[in-house]
Every structure is written in C-alpha cells, then in structure tokens.
C-alpha cells in the first residue's frame, strides 16, 4: 500500500465513521421516540445539532486543559477509527492491533476527566468520578472478552480475527463459536455506551448531566461528535469481534446497526443503576460469563 | 362522633381557665383562650386527647383592634375532629411563644408568619426568612402594607393601547369599570 493510499484511508475512515455515527445517533433517537410513542427527530437532526453548536458565537473556555480535554476526547476516537478495519479499508489496523484499540478507547474518558476537572463545577466533578468508575466497571469484562477472542483466534490483529471468522461463514463467527463471550461483550458494550441502566454519569436529574454541565458551544459540539464516534466504534468493534466483520458495506452496516439496536431498545425501558449497583452487576455477570467463556475457549 | 367523646372533650377543656368553647359542627370545635393559656391547652390536647396533628397556624391581622389573632388548628386521628384554638396578641411588640416542642410542623408556620407578619416566636428553631429572603420591605401581609403603592413605585407596566381598543373606547365600551362602582340592583331570588 502506497503512502498516498494510506493517507486517503486514514482521512476517509474517520469521515465515514462520523457519517455512520450520526446515523446511529439518529437511530438511537428514533428508537427512543418509537418506544415513547412519538415521532422522533428529523433525518438530519444530528447534523443540525452539531453545526449549530459549532456555530455558536460564545465559546466559554475554562482554560487550556479544558480545550485539550475535548480534543483528547475526540482525538482518541478518531485515532481508534483508523485501527478499525471496514470493508475495503484497513487503515493501520495491521500495525495497531486490538490492544492499542482498547487503550485508545480509554483516552476519551480521561480527556473528558481532564477537561471537566478544569471547569471546577461540582456536578461535573461528580459526573466524571462516576464516569471513571463506570469505565473501571465495564473495562474488566471488556478486557476479558477481548482476551478470550484474541486467544481463540490466536492473534491480536483485528484483520486476522475478522478473516478467521469469515473463513467458514456463519459457523465460524465469534457469536456461534463463543456465545458466552458474545453475551458478556454485549453487556460490556451496553455499559460503555453510557445508556440506561448504566447512565450513571449523565444523570440529568441527579447531577445535571454531569461532565457536560459546563460545556457549551463548540465544546458541547465536540462531545456530540464524540458520541457519534463512540457509537460507531463500539458497534464496529463488536461486529469485528463476534459477527465476522463485513465483506460488503451493506452487510457491515446492517450488522453494526442491528447490534447497536439491541442496547438501544433495552436502554429506554430501564431507569439507571446506582454506581455501586453498576459495579456489582458488571463485575458479577459479564465477568463470570466471560471467564466461563474463556474456559470453554481454552 | 358520639356524644360521649364530645362531653369528655368538653370536660377536658374546662380545665383551662378563661376558655370559651363553641361547637361549630360535629367535627369542628372553636376554642378561644387567653394568650398565656394556649401552651397548656395544646399540651392538654396533644397529651391527653390525641390531637397530635397540627394542621396549620393561621394569623389574622386585626389592625383596627391593634391585635394579631393566631389560630392553631389541631386534628385528632382518633376522634376525627378538629379544634381551632384562637388567641389574640398585641400587635406591638408582636412576640409570642413557639409551640415547636409540642408540634414540629409549627416550625414552618411560625417561620412563615414571622416573615409575613413580623411576629417573633420565642423558642422556634428557625426564624430566618424562607420565602422573602430577598425582600427588604416591611412584612407584606400586614394590613398597613399597600402593595399597589409599592408596585407603582418599583415596577412599570407594558403600555397596551391598540387601535381596535381605542375605537372601542371611542364608542363608549372596552373600559373596565372598577367593581366598587359597578353596583347592579340586587336580583331577587
């Protein structure tokens, strides 16, 4: 692969991720609307929101770290997109591998923590403390799941993992080979999205949307963009690990949207847990399922 | 409630000196007592007659008589009746005893009366302002406080005089006559 091609891929992959991510946000809001018996937002609503937020005249900054935090939150995911192979584009997935991806996916939370810490708003501080706790909660099952998949495939390279799954059709998919790990992964993925019942760090009625409380204008716009990337990354990672990635764009997108629809449909039927309940749940069931799954794999 | 209970209550109330009991209905008793006998009355009602629920403390400003009337409404969950104990205190200096040690809900009502009427209750746990924290005028519920004068001094209204209203006025309508001037002949039933 020539340097130009690589450069084009590295530009295209986050862009595609952004566009798909916006549609995922739209899907999320439409699902919520359907469950709540209403119409829901128009098709381009996520785009309107993002453009509007970036075009606000007032951009209240709380200092350098605040700016850097948002950049980190977006940048972490943008970097992660280049490590996620999509049909026709592999980016630098070969060189990065799944461990790097996991690290990159943690950066946004840390960036947010830095940025929110600078705002000195107690609601934000509580929110970010909860967000980091939640990260601690869902990362353990996530790491177990990723380890199990990597062990089964014998590699940490996502391209190889996808290739082994695609070799024998549906029977070699991760979800049929390692159903327990797939379930654990789904729960961990749901938690990492921060939707009910794991919505502890947004929690409007408790801490006034936590980390976002001091964000306005571009900063909030950055977080909206981050949400698009987050949905995309989580869904595509799951598809790559368990659903055999995608051979064509059509089945790739279909799988990603379907996989995302599961936690989204559950989310709007539940209230949120308390922090310790979340920890207890995440360290109990997904970890247990994951460990049993690993035992099967080994 | 049965006559037995009412008699029993009357006997009990007779222990207080200077008391006037009026039975308004089967469930409402009005009691007038001198101001210094009220704590004893409430203690009696709460301790021996089961009137454990303080429903409200109302304050009435009788400016002509230069007195405040305080009304303690207590309810019994057992005999299902309500006793309203009326007392009168002098408008100046407007100080009275708190009944917080008997009835905890009194804290809110006393605080409320304090800021609305300026009556100070001795022994109440909290006499800070609650509703009117950012108000520096006189206690507004006193009868001498003229809220319209206050408004005219501090606030202004939107002028609204569109053409259609002016036309109406020119035709002799559209103006609201103050109710005091609008005396119709009383309809016979």
């Amino acid at each position, binding site marked *: 692969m020539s340097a130009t091609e690589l450069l084009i891929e590295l530009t295209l992959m986050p862009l595609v991720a952004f566009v798909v991510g916006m549609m995922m946000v739209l899907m999320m809001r439409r699902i919520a609307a359907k469950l709540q018996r209403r119409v829901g937002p128009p098709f381009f609503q996520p785009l309107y929101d993002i453009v509007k937020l970036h075009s606000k005249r007032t951009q209240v900054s709380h200092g350098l770290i605040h700016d850097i935090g948002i950049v980190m939150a977006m940048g972490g995911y943008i970097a992660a997109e280049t490590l996620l192979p999509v049909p026709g584009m592999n980016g630098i997935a070969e060189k990065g591998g799944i461990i790097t991806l996991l690290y990159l996916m943690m950066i946004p939370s840390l960036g947010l923590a830095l940025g929110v810490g600078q705002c000195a708003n107690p609601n934000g501080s509580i929110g970010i403390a909860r967000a980091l706790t939640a990260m601690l909660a869902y990362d353990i099952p996530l790491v177990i799941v990723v380890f199990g998949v990597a062990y089964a495939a014998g590699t940490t390279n996502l391209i190889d993992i996808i290739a082994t799954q695609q070799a024998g059709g549906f029977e070699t998919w991760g979800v049929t080979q390692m159903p327990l790990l797939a379930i654990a992964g789904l729960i961990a993925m749901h938690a990492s999205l921060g939707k009910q019942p794991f919505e502890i760090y947004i929690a409007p009625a408790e801490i*006034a949307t936590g980390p976002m409380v001091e964000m306005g204008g571009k900063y909030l716009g950055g977080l909206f963009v981050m949400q698009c990337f987050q949905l995309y990354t989580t869904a595509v990672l799951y598809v790559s690990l368990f659903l055999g990635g995608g051979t064509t764009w059509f089945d790739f997108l279909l799988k990603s949207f379907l996989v995302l629809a599961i936690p989204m449909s559950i989310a709007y039927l539940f209230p949120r847990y308390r922090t310790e309940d979340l920890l207890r749940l995440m360290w109990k069931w997904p970890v247990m399922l994951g460990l049993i799954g690993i035992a099967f794999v080994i | 409630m049965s006559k037995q209970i009412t008699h029993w209550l009357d006997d009990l109330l007779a222990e207080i000196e200077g008391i006037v009991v009026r039975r308004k209905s089967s469930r409402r008793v009005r009691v007038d007592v001198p101001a210094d006998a009220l704590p004893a009355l409430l203690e009696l009602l709460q301790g021996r007659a089961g009137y454990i*629920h303080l429903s409200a403390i109302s304050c009435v400003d009788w400016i002509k008589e230069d007195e405040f009337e305080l009304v303690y*409404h207590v309810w019994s969950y057992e005999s299902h009746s309500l006793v309203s104990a009326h007392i009168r205190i002098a408008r100046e200096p407007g100080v009275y005893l708190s009944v917080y040690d008997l009835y905890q809900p009194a804290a809110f009502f006393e605080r409320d009366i304090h800021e609305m009427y300026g009556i100070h209750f001795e022994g109440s746990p909290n006499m800070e302002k*609650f509703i009117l924290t950012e108000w520096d005028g006189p206690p507004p519920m006193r009868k001498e406080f003229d809220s319209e004068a206050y408004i005219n001094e501090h606030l202004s209204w939107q002028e609204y005089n569109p053409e259609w209203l002016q036309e109406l006025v020119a035709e002799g309508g559209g103006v609201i006559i103050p109710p005091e001037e609008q005396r119709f002949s009383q309809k016979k039933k």
Partner: protein
Amino acid sequence: MRPENYEAQRQPPSNEFELNFGPNHPGIEGNYALKVKLHGDVVLEAQADGGYLHRGFEKLMEQRLWIQNIALVPRICVPDPSPMELCYSMAVEQLCGLHVPQRANWIRVMQLELSRIAAHLFTFGGHAATTGMYSTMYWGVADRDLVLDLFEEFTGGRVYSIYNIPGGVRRELPSGFLQRVSETLDYIESRLPDYDNLFFKNQVFVKRAKDVGVMTQEQALAWGVTGPNLRATGLAFDVRRDDPYLIYDQLEFEIPTEESGDAWARTLVRRHELMESIRIVRQVVEALPDIHGPIRAPIPNPLAWNVPAGETYTRVESSKGELCYYVVSDGGPKPYRVHVRGPSSMHAVQVLEKLSVGSRIEDIAQTMFSLDACPPEVDR
C-alpha cells in the same frame, strides 16, 4: 474566541463541598432549591430555599372580590388545581350558609377525582424521570393529556378549570360527556398493566426506589406528613373518608396503604389510589344520569357580594395531602384573610430536609418527587 473573565473558580481542596440543588435543576420539581452540603456524594446538611414562586396569593386575595378569587386559587397548585377551587368554594359556602345542590356535588367529585388521576399520572411520570426512565414520563404525561381533554370539554379550561364556584359548578355537562369519560377511564385502566411492567415491577426501579427517603409512621405523624405519603407509612387516613365533604360518605372506595414508608411505597400508594379514583369516577358516571336538579345554588350579584362575617376552616384531600383553607370574612366584599395550608408546605420543607440528610445525592430528586412536593403551594 474567549471572553476574558471566565477564569475557573477554584475552591480549597476538601472532601466537603456545597451544592445548589436548584432552582434550575431537572431533579427539582418546579422552581425550588435545596442547598446541600456534601461529603463525597452523601448529603450532610440540606436546607430548603423557597420563595421563587412567591406571588403573595394571600395578599392578592384580600384585594379582590370573593368571586374574583376563584380565578386566583387554582394557580396555587399547578399540577392539581381542582381541590384548590373546591376548598375555597366550600369555605365561602360555609360562611354564607349556601346549600349546594346534590347534582353539583356529584359533578364536583368527578372533577376532583379526574384531577387526582391527572396529578398522579404526572407524579409518577416525574418520579420515573428522576431515575432516568423517560419512557414512563412520556407515557404518563401523554395519558394525562387525555384527562385534560376531558377537563377542557366540560370546564372550558385545560389546566385551570375555574369550574367550582361558591354555590355549585359553573356549567352543565355536555351531552354524551359521561360516555367519553368512561372511554377515557377504560383506556387509562388498560394502560396500567403496561405501566406495571415498565415501571412498578421493573426490578431496577424497585432496587433504586426501595429504602430511599424512609420515614416511620411515628416520624410521619410528628412531622405533619399527610396524604399518600402518610398512607405509605401504614396509617389508613384519608380526609375524604374520615372528615367527609361533598358526597364522599356515599361512595365506595378503599384507602390503599403500604408499610415501608420509602419512595417506592409512596409511588405504589399513588398507583393504587389512581385505581380507586377511577372506581369513584365510575360510580359517579353511573349515578349522575339519575340525579337531576340545578347545578348551582343562586348567589347574589357576585360583583356586590358581601359575605357575612365569620371564619371557617375547610379541609380537602388533594392528590398531595391535606389541603386546608382558613377564610375570615369581616362582612365586606372582599375576604379579610385567606390562609392556604398546602400539603407541600410540610413535605417540601421540613420533611424533605430531614429525609435528604444522610441520603445520597442521586436520591434527593427521588425523595422530592416521591413526596410529590409542589413548590407553588409552599411559596403561594
């Protein structure tokens, strides 16, 4: 793009900090504030701060005619305005010795109970929203709207009906109205299993709401708690039954109670009460066609109406608890004094302060919404 004065405010490093919970906070019902001192996320001290909705109702009422006040009173409690009208009308009737016709009493009961249904749907919608379950709120508020449609049809007002006037009610029911009432009730009843599955039996919600804001029966009695919140501690007391007004002594209904006295019990009591209200309205719908007669007693010219001197204390069970009006007349065209004892004046101030202490920050909103504290009643 950076205005100059936005330096972050730094507080000295400490585990304890103070937080303004409200007035602009989604976890607060209405415009109200709690100042809380936190250690981590445990509340050490809570202080209610009201007055944001203060309009000086009691002063305003002294300046208006007896009949004008009817338009004023429902505004005291926004989610459940009908008991306010009734309580005031009853007070004026008692002062004048007006005898209200039977038919008006039955219609009033229907209005009150429909209002209670609407208020309860709104309240547990709100309680659900504080725990993050917005679907229940969306459903609850939408179903409440159907009741409001009924209100609009027979009173003319969607929220503030201004329908009870001293002496009776203002208008006769429209034709075919009772049929539509029972249709709406059927619909709401058919929705209740959905609410049960989504909300009341939802294990995550039960886990969240149990053991939140617990008060024992002794505490509740000492703090002056009334209404559903008192019944959630196990005491079956209801003004409608134990101090009956209107025609409640002729109606059949039960008083649901729960033992545990926590947020969950309070919400559950409301849910059962909703069923009882539906039952009462059904009885009214059945009985109303056979009750004929006028809908209001004749009153003198309301613009020159001097109510005889006297004082009276009326009590009504609103959806939030015991609602009382103390009305004094000096024989003039305007009330001499009207004192409104809203049930929330206890719940939102002392009870909320006491229940918040020791709870966690995420439970303050739940405590407030499960107490169904209505700030405009406190501030008046």
